[in-house]
């Protein structure tokens, strides 16, 4: 069912967008760890620009070709200027390849002591429309920003959430919405969820208002352990960062997968972290765990498990980067993971 990467005999080729800021540093770590773990993946460097086509932010043809050919890409953070400049490249990529679902698990890690200890969330975020539609009108005293909700995208993403729940063996999907205040737009998202109540017989579809979900997920996170949560774009964005805070307290740990019908792009949730770029301080875990999700997607589960175990062991040994309260540099942490691969 899932789209696989093109493979040379015994090898997968994956497009690698290293990204901005800390991107190249954390990309280097992943490459080092993959080669030490003998993962049968060949990287194809991929530069996504940006370029401007017809006044719109676009990515270069060569990058599109590479990703379409390989079907799987790994991506570091791409910086977006705030309040000005080109449209978010992350968004452009999601639109270009119609990556309609964004899958973001967040779980407490054994060996990492954090404020909240029992987090195990799986969230699917709509990835192509909603508040990220990108059309805004400046009307003098006021600005209008359009939020777009379509039946089609809502259906694709909620179906994905239900299928994924089945895949994970989670019995319930929770549709998060704010239909009370946005009865037409979020109302549509809600209704589509309702229409899919019988889509998979062994996955129950439930509904919760955004307010209640947010409150309960912080107050009583265990409540959601057997759910896959699905939400419109912006809510999903906020919920998943919140989940990073709850699970590990750092953005540097949370991976994500952008799923489309033809192509999937795996990425770190965090941004380009310009404040620490070039200082060997970045935590490469989020990108590494994204690469682990990618390996699972490719069916390379034993490599995935081995790398993940080595990283968790390293953290449990107390070798952690600054964002987790540790003292290790990116290189020290990376080398320790490599050592633990064979341990």
């Amino acid at each position, binding site marked *: 069912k899932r789209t696989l990467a093109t493979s040379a005999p015994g090898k997968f080729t994956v497009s690698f967008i290293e990204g901005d800021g800390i991107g190249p540093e954390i990309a280097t770590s992943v490459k080092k760890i993959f080669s030490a773990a003998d993962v049968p993946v060949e990287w194809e460097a991929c530069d996504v620009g940006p370029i401007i086509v017809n006044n719109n932010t676009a990515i270069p043809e060569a990058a599109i070709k590479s990703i379409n050919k390989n079907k799987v890409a790994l991506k570091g953070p791409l910086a977006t200027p705030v309040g000005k400049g080109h449209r978010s490249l992350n968004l452009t990529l999601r639109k270009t390849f119609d990556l309609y679902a964004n899958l973001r698990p967040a779980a407490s890690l054994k060996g990492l002591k954090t404020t909240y200890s029992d987090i195990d969330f799986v969230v699917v975020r709509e990835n192509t429309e909603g508040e990220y539609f*990108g059309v*805004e009108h400046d009307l003098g005293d006021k*600005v209008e920003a359009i939020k777009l909700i*379509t039946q089609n995208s809502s259906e694709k993403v909620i179906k994905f959430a239900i299928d994924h729940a089945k895949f994970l063996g989670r019995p319930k999907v929770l549709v998060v919405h704010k239909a*009370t205040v*946005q009865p037409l737009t979020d109302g549509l998202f809600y209704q589509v969820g309702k229409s899919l109540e019988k889509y998979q017989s062994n996955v129950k579809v439930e509904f919760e208002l955004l*307010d209640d979900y947010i409150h309960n997920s*912080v107050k009583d996170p265990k409540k959601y352990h057997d759910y896959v949560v699905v939400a419109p774009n912006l809510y999903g964005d906020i919920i998943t960062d919140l989940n990073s805070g*709850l699970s590990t307290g750092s*953005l540097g740990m949370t991976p994500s997968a952008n799923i489309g019908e033809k192509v999937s792009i795996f990425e770190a949730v965090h941004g380009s972290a310009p404040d620490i770029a070039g200082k060997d301080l970045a935590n490469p875990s989020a990108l590494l765990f994204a690469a682990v999700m990618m390996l699972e997607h490719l069916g390379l589960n034993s490599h995935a498990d081995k790398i993940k175990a080595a990283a968790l062991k390293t953290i449990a040994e107390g070798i952690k980067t600054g964002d987790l309260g540790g003292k290790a540099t990116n290189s020290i942490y990376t080398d320790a993971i490599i050592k633990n691969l064979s341990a």
Partner: protein
Amino acid sequence: MLHTPVIKRTLATLPKTYGGRYTVSLIPGDGTGKEITSSVQKIFKSENIPVDFEEVNDLEKAVESVKRNKIGLKGIWETPLTGGSKNIALRKQLDLFAGLSLYKSIPGISVKIPNIDFALIRDNVEGEYSGLEHETVPGVRELLKIVSKSNTERLARFSYDYALKNNRKEVVAIHKANIMKKADGLFKNIIGEIGTKEYPSIVNSAMIVDNASMQAVSKPHQFDIMVATNLYGNILSNIGGALIGSKSLIPGANFGTEYAVFEPGCRHPDVEIAGKNEANPTGLILSSVLMLKHLGLNEYAERINKATYKVISEGKATTKDIGGSATTTQFTEAIIDELKSL
């Protein structure tokens, strides 16, 4: 630059007293509203507070009543999934543009992170709550999020005035201007510019809403005053409620230039537990404390505040949501007993 915090400029005008007594519109709302408002009424009665409540629960009448009295105390109405929130309608009709809520740890409640103390001020009349939605073709629907200069400017001034008056040091604008460059860009820029130009003694900064949500659950002590668009305010209020220990602990108030309506800062009608005598009225009691301060009845406010904190910290008569087993009535009576011994 010289700046006097002219509270009148951004805060509701004070109601008149009649023979030293105030009349306050009492709007119970739905769900547990009746139980929590009656808890406040009992406490006020036991203290002989010079406030007479005028109870109304119909939107039209409530608006009229607040227009007359200039001040209200309110629970939350339930909103159907088909829309038509009376809560929003009331705030818009009374032009209560600023929604204030306070997140302060209460000793005695078991929480993950102690000593939290921040305020949240949210837009109450526009943003994602504009109500402007349409279907362009079947299956394709749009909502217009509105951010206006004029409304954001008054929200900014309200926030900085609040900071000055309450001895707070920093205002952080919560936005998503990397994606909604114009709308959230306008919001973020106005909050920053007004701060820099008119309130140089208050630090101003900005933070993206998803990062702010993450920071709120990991390092909440960095926040002093957050000012947010309507929806981001909703999200942060619910995170805040959970951090303090329960959504039912948070005081709140809605201010316009003419009227003020005090209501819980985490706005939940709690329909599931309505009528069970289980509701925690603390959020509304502390909202009524804010109201008494607004009326200048500071001594009463202090007493109720103190008694409520005491009862919670002793933990003998607390409600279920914070781990206790007392009913709404028992909790209320414990506060009244405590008041007698103060």
